[in-house]
């Protein structure tokens, strides 16, 4: 009986995913709920984080735009800064098997250690289901969801669309801007920007 219920729940979830994926997440609207598994085998849903800010960060460790933010330590610094303030930071790897940036759970955990990265979790999305649900185009592509589940930011990590780590200093970080403004009860001044980076290496 329990098993049947679990199956029904899974089917209902898949159906919900299929329905909601008809349109991608849009700034100002409810961010679509999802269920995904992290690199430690733990399941995460967006709804379980209701009441908290959630950041989604699309990643591909070998993309030069992503490397800019990891090799400089910028991404890790942001992850530490915001998770310390109670933000749930979910890094998402949507590269398909065989494509650049595809990672197994073991690979990813070794990489997190090596890079001293500090997200809440890394969601493994080799089918691209979560990527397509949010219409993530690039790595990095950043999403910020407020405690009410509303998508309040989507786009670039900052205003310097380059692969050069020297451009990080002095850049306007849109994720920090959105979180800072929203936490202060202000409207987000730059809610959508063109995300820059490598294309997400989807299966299709």
């Amino acid at each position, binding site marked *: 009986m329990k098993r049947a219920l679990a199956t029904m729940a899974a089917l209902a979830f898949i159906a919900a995913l299929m329905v909601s994926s008809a349109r991608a997440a*849009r700034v100002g609207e409810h961010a679509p709920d999802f269920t995904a598994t992290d690199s430690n085998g733990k399941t995460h849903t967006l709804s379980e984080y209701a009441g908290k800010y959630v950041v989604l960060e699309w990643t591909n460790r070998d993309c*030069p735009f992503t490397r800019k933010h990891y090799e400089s330590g910028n991404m890790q610094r942001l992850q530490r800064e915001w998770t310390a303030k109670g933000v749930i930071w979910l890094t998402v790897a949507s590269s398909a098997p065989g494509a650049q940036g595809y990672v197994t759970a073991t690979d990813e955990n070794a990489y997190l250690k090596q890079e001293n990265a500090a997200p809440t979790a890394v969601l493994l999305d080799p089918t691209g289901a979560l990527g397509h649900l949010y219409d993530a*185009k690039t790595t990095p592509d950043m999403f910020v969801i407020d405690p009410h589940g509303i998508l309040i930011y989507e*786009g670039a990590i900052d205003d310097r669309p380059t*692969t050069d780590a020297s451009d990080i200093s002095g850049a306007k970080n849109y994720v920090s801007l959105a979180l800072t403004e929203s936490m202060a009860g202000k409207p987000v001044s730059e809610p959508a920007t063109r995300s820059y980076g*490598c*294309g*997400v290496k989807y299966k299709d």
Partner: protein
Amino acid sequence: MWHRGSFSDAATRVSLLCWLLTLLCVSVFLLGTQASAQTPPAPQSHAQLQLVAEETFFRPGRTLWAGVLFHLDSGWHIYWQNPGDSGEPPKIRWDLQSGFQAGAIRWPVPMRLGKGSVVDYGYEDEVLLMAPIRIVSPKVGSPVPIDAEVSYIVCREICIPGKARLSISLRRSKGRSRAPDFSEWRELFERTRAQFPKPMPSAWQVSVASKGNEFILSVRGAGAASAAAFFPLDPGVIENSAPQNLASSGNGFQLTLRKSEQPLKPVVSLRGLLVLGASGAFEISAPVAKQ
């Protein structure tokens, strides 16, 4: 003893002579290409860059054209000014002596790249990104270095960033003739100009209607079109990966474009290129009519 010579010795000497001649020709060729400079081939860079000028001499008061010629490995691409869903356009930072002023890059018509949900706009194989250089001051010495710092990203399944510092040297024309002295790159510049988008024909009437999640781009007075593709100049206006549906309508045609799922701001006008197969590409800009 080689001077007595057997047949094979003679053959060796002939081939040696050929070699020397080839070397000489190559050297002469390299010396002759003062209007170009090439970066040393870096392994796995997938792009070779060359700075080229259309003329061999400059004249104060005139404008000459220079550009960065990208030779790309098969399957690799660089990006248009609006790169689409991913990537970044190359950036050229000119480093010029006072009295020389560079204008903006003239972008040739791009191609659509990618088949899935991530679609980009850019160039494959070979492309020249050219810009005008005005010589505004009459008091400039000779020869004058033209330097350019280029940063770019070249992608296939993966992306590799690149940087190049390129330099050529141009001498001031001594001749009194007003005719320009074209370099060996003249034909390439002319070929590139032929790929520039053209201004919209005055007989056309372009309008854009907003309908649900689509923009209907109507062109009247253009006759029927057998193929049409719209390349947006601004990001976040249309879904780059969505199919564009062409239908004939009266004395023209309509192109249906899917709106961006994530508009960056309210779309008040559509600006971009309309590429009509062999008829070429046209610059269009039309306000979006209110619903």
